[in-house]
């Protein structure tokens, strides 16, 4: 699977962890220290895309995954959607980035209605 974006994580102390760093450690997103993340940066592998940045509020948990599909019986290319964002006990905010460069944001505030 060839992805068109790669992630970088910026920690609160300015340290950068890249996807390649995590891969070199034999892992992936599971190598991210969630408690120290200040921002997630999606860097394009191709020059015709723009970086996408999600900055986290204090105390938020970073979110990152690539949503992939396998469709039976077709010859279509399988486009991935990369999700980066954060969540807290009271809110969640996600940026959805399509391989083609389209970006959408979803945000929800969570209320306890009980």
């Amino acid at each position, binding site marked *: 699977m060839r992805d068109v974006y790669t992630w970088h994580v910026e920690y609160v102390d300015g340290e950068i962890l890249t996807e390649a760093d995590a891969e070199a450690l034999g892992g992936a997103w599971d190598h991210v220290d969630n408690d120290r993340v200040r921002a997630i940066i999606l860097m394009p592998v191709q020059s015709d895309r723009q970086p996408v940045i999600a900055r986290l509020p204090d105390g938020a948990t970073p979110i990152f995954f690539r949503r992939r599909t*396998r469709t*039976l019986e077709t010859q279509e290319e399988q486009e991935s959607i990369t999700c980066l964002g954060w969540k807290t006990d009271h809110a969640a905010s996600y940026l959805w980035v399509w391989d083609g460069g389209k970006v959408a944001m979803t945000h929800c505030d969570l209320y306890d209605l009980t």
Partner: protein
Amino acid sequence: MAAATVRAYCATGAGPTNTDVDSADAGSITFGRDDNVASTATIPIPTATGTKYSYLKYLFLDVTVTGTTSITNRRISSASALATGLFLFFQNQATYTQNNGTQGAVAGNYPADSGSNGATPASYTLASTTPQLWDNTSVSTGSTGKNGNYAQCALGVDNTYAGGGNAATSLANTTLTYDEA
């Protein structure tokens, strides 16, 4: 990230035999009443109110090239709505049991006929165009082979289906969605 190469597979037979059924080579499945990937034994269309079902298809995600990631949030959907009277049902299934040609709720059974149209068999969920979860277990892609559980599927046809007898009725494409990180 060392992303994995993941394919959609279908398990059949006693082994089972695992067959890739996704877009990479235009493989396909056909629902019917035999234990083949592409079934040829047809499902009877009810002549009165009721629903009849196919044998089981065990779909799953298979890691063909390992990665350093993990997969979770496995979901299934139809690319578009099925024709009136046709229904795709699924359930999460950890264990493969070969189709035994018996109707019932025991492992390997296909669902018993229903006297109602569009009836969802017990423990199954009706698939739709919205992806629905079948297995949310996080499993590493560090090993080749099946990743997560099976989506145990069956096709239902009820008395409202107007397509007529046809051994090769086309269905909307089935899509397996997952999250990798």
